[in-house]
């Protein structure tokens, strides 16, 4: 951790830059923005003149060394405050620079259009040369150069750089999962993407602008705090100024250096000096946790959070339902059910299908299946399966299967109906398996709750944040998940 921080915070270039900046920031016009440090700077200047005055022969102000030390201490205070701010800023800048590098240096495999046909003429250009409407190709391992929409293909994309979601997501053409973001990495397959944003407007650009703090505004609380600090500073200006006549009444002359030292000690120098650094580092920390704070105000608002509304699928749960159990119908061998379930899922590429095979523990290749015909899932039949020989295996939603069974004149066993109900009430999804229109049993699919989510909610609750789950699931499922995850409402 330590070495890591050293690399991050105290990189040589960063420090060098910050030191340079801390002198540049001595400019009074810059200091004026922070009233506390501005007064300290004035104090420093006064001390400088006092030192010069003593050198010119003034006797009443004490020794030169003493005054010069005070001057040095004040100067160091100023420089340190500037240094802290510059360092925080430099970190943000370094981050922005690396982002900008992504934007500019990512090679894009641009597709040149000849007539109305796409030919395989691919030129490698810099991502910054892509304009809206251009088309480029990304293959496994490529970084997507800019924001766009997939017009052809499907790919898994690692979006962790932007969203923080560690699991890769699937992006494919058509539908609502077709957009890709610059800076993310394609992990598999090949996609053809059309650029949707003009240069300078992409997501990355916006992020760079945020990180750089170009649009950094003072937050409401920061403004109020500045008022408080300025108020204190004013009080102590009054205190120090009025001390002069008091002292002259008491016939105890006080040298200028003592007034200034007293003043700097009294005013809230530390908070005043580090205030802007605190603001920047707050945003920086959020960024490191893969949270993009659009402004300091957003960070502040996050602190005022009382209720957190959460989507169920993908947030509280992994999102992919997994098979967790097999329930055989009465009079059916469980192994037979498992075998049939595995067979029906042989060609099923969905996570559910894969998980059934996984749970079944049978290698589909080992099963004797001749001339299989795979039936794909459709929204109409709400089932999928496999046909081979004169065996017909289907798995699908309860009501669709029930219809099918009853149409064929068979009876849906009551034991299985109970299993189905039980699974539903436990928050799972039942998949009924049929062999030649006879019910074999039910597969239980469970939406898996992400590990550690319970503890996270517990922590949120301690912070006084109430969690509320919003979902389109049936109330029973929702209730079950909510209880499991520890959601408040």
């Amino acid at each position, binding site marked *: 951790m330590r070495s890591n921080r050293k690399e991050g915070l105290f990189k040589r270039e960063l420090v060098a830059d910050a030191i340079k900046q801390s002198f540049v920031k001595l400019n009074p016009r810059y200091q004026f923005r922070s009233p506390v440090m501005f007064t300290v700077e004035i104090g420093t200047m006064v001390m400088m003149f006092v030192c010069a005055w003593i050198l010119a022969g003034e006797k009443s102000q004490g020794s030169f060394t003493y005054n010069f030390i005070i001057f040095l201490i004040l100067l160091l205070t100023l420089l340190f405050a500037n240094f802290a701010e510059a360092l925080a800023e430099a970190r943000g800048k370094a981050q922005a620079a690396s982002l900008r590098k992504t934007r500019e240096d990512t090679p894009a495999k641009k597709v040149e259009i000849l007539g109305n046909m796409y030919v395989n003429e691919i030129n490698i250009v810099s991502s910054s040369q892509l304009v809206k409407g251009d088309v480029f190709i990304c293959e496994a391992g490529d970084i997507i150069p800019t924001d766009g929409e997939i017009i052809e293909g499907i790919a898994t994309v690692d979006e962790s750089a932007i969203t923080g979601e560690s699991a890769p997501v699937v992006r494919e053409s058509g539908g609502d999962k077709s957009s890709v973001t610059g800076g993310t990495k394609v992990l598999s397959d090949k996609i053809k993407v059309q650029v949707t944003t003009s240069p300078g407007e992409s997501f990355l650009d916006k992020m760079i602008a945020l990180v750089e703090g170009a649009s950094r505004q003072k937050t*409401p*609380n920061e*403004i*109020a*705090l500045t*008022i*408080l600090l*300025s*108020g204190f500073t*004013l*009080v*102590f200006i*009054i*205190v*120090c*100024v*009025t*001390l*002069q*006549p*008091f*002292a*002259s*009444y*008491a*016939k*105890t002359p006080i040298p200028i250096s003592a007034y200034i030292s*007293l003043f700097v000690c*009294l005013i809230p120098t530390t908070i005043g000096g580090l205030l802007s650094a605190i603001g920047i580092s707050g945003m920086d920390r959020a960024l490191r946790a893969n949270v993009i704070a659009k402004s300091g105000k957003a960070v*502040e*608002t996050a*602190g*005022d*959070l*009382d*209720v957190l509304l959460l989507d169920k699928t993908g947030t509280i749960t992994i999102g992919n339902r997994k098979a967790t159990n097999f329930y055989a119908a009465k009079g059916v061998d469980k192994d037979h059910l498992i075998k049939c379930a595995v067979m029906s899922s042989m060609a099923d590429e969905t996570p559910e299908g894969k998980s059934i095979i996984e749970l079944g523990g049978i290698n589909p290749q080992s099963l004797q299946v001749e001339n299989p015909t795979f039936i794909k899932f459709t929204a109409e039949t709400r089932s999928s399966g496999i046909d081979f020989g004169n065996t017909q295996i289907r798995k699908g939603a309860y009501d669709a299967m029930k219809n099918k069974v009853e149409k064929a004149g068979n009876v849906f066993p009551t034991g299985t109906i109970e299993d189905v109900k039980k699974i539903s009430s436990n928050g799972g999804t039942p998949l009924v398996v049929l062999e030649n229109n006879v019910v074999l049993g039910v597969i239980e699919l469970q939406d898996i709750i992400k590990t550690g989510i319970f503890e996270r909610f517990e922590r949120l*609750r301690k*912070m*006084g*944040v*109430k969690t509320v789950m919003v979902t389109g699931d049936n109330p029973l499922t929702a209730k079950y998940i909510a209880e499991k995850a520890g959601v408040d409402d």
Partner: protein
Amino acid sequence: MNPQILGVVVMFVATLLLAVPLGRYIAKVYGGQRVWTDVFFNPIERLFFKASRIDPGIEMGWKQSMIALLTINLIWFLWVLFCLLNQSWLPMNPDHNPNMTPDLAVNTAISFLVNCNLQQYSGETGVSYFSQVYGLMFLQFVSAGTGMAAAAIVFNALKDRTTDKLGNFYNYFLRSCTRILLPICILVAAIHLFEGTPMTFKGIDTMTSVQGDTMHVSRGPVAAFVAIKHVGTNGGGFFGANSAHPLENPSYLSNIVQMVAQILIPFAMVFAFGFYCNKKRLAWVFWGVMTTGFLILVVPTIIAEVHGNPYIAQMGISQPGGNMEGKEVRFGATASAFWSIATTVISTGSVNGMHDSFMPVSGMNMMLGMMINSFYGGVGVGFLNFFIYVILAVFIGGLMVGRTPEFGGKKVEAREMKIAMIIALFHPFLILSFTALASYFAAHDTNMGWWFADAAGKHNAGGWLNNPSHHGFSEMLYQYTSSSANNGSGFEGLADNNPFWNISTGIVLLFSRFLPIIGPVAIAGLMANKKFIPASGGTLKTDTGTFGMLVFAVKVIIAALAFFPALALGPIAEWMKMH
């Protein structure tokens, strides 16, 4: 237990026992609920409102209320100025007291208008009965009513809702006078009559003493005056010696009654806030903070006074009664010490001993009480001052827990902070800058011309100090502190009836009265207008001891840091010289 200490404890406990039910009663009065005094006062109030053509049902915003407050105060000021400047020919002047000089009249009128009662005249020779009753006593009632009405507006604004209608100022004001101040005053005055306080419109009495000398004894409608002087935390005495005068405070019992009367409403206002806004726990926290501060000031003072003066001890004289210089034998050192702190933390400023002769520690504690000015504080305004510190504490506390600061479900933002900061700044600014001015003149012994002439007719500024060195500085600091806190007690020993002191304290008085009323009311009014956010688990809890400590710390930091350098050159330096 030492009977003197017991007497002090009795005073305090009696006040607390009376204050809780009174707080509930006050909350009902402001809430417009039925109270037992309705029978007497409903017809009277209706008559007032009919005559003045005010509809008490019309609700006002905070700005309207403040405009009403300022106009009505201006009219009172002009009326009393007229009384004081023309009292020689106005009726009820059996002792033929002369008109006041213009600068003294302005100072007196302002000082009574702002509930301060800094008196740079002596009641026996300075004012007629007409001015006492229709000018000064009138102002003692209405200034107290004004402060309470302002507090009532703040109470109303702090309720859990969003509104810009904060009730009718005139209604609050009149009800404060008739239903709260008047009944208590009648009771207190009656007790004083039995204890021997005069209540007459006859002039100076002449009597022959045992030794055969002829004595002139001033008298007048004292009992009525003393009652409102304490109940309204005004503090302006009928006689120059204030409550040290045997006719104004004749016995130990009357001393207890006056003590209870002056702390009663400041206590009760805190509880009234709890009952009115249904925040009883918060009210107890506030009261706890105030009491902690009060005890921290009062205990060392009592100890210092009981131990007596080390200089006298060095001379080999034993002081069994403690430091009795400037104190009344019938009260003793303990009760006087308790009084001196009570009268300064609340803004009464009446005295039953001469503060100038107290020990330096006591003098410092008295000044600290006025510098903080909200350990109880004056009727109504004490709560308002306290409210400012609460806002500051809420803000600092809110930032500490990382949330936008809120109080009572309302966000505290930059605008409120600006106002709170100005108000908190103003008090030290007025005290320090004017003391600096005075000590500059004194240090340079400036020729003040018309502004100042001492008894010998010399115009040099050094002449206004009867005591040199640190004690003289304390006198000047005390005078402005007392003015800025609207307290009105004096360290005395200062030649203060002259244009310089009359006018400069007059300016301080005016600013330090009306800004600290307008500020909190404005903050409360702005907050009332905001969206109400119900408290959640993450909200900074204000009704806890921790928050109480935070408020206390904020007060101490502001007061200690701002005033410490000044105090160091006054009472602290004096104490170091003594030991």
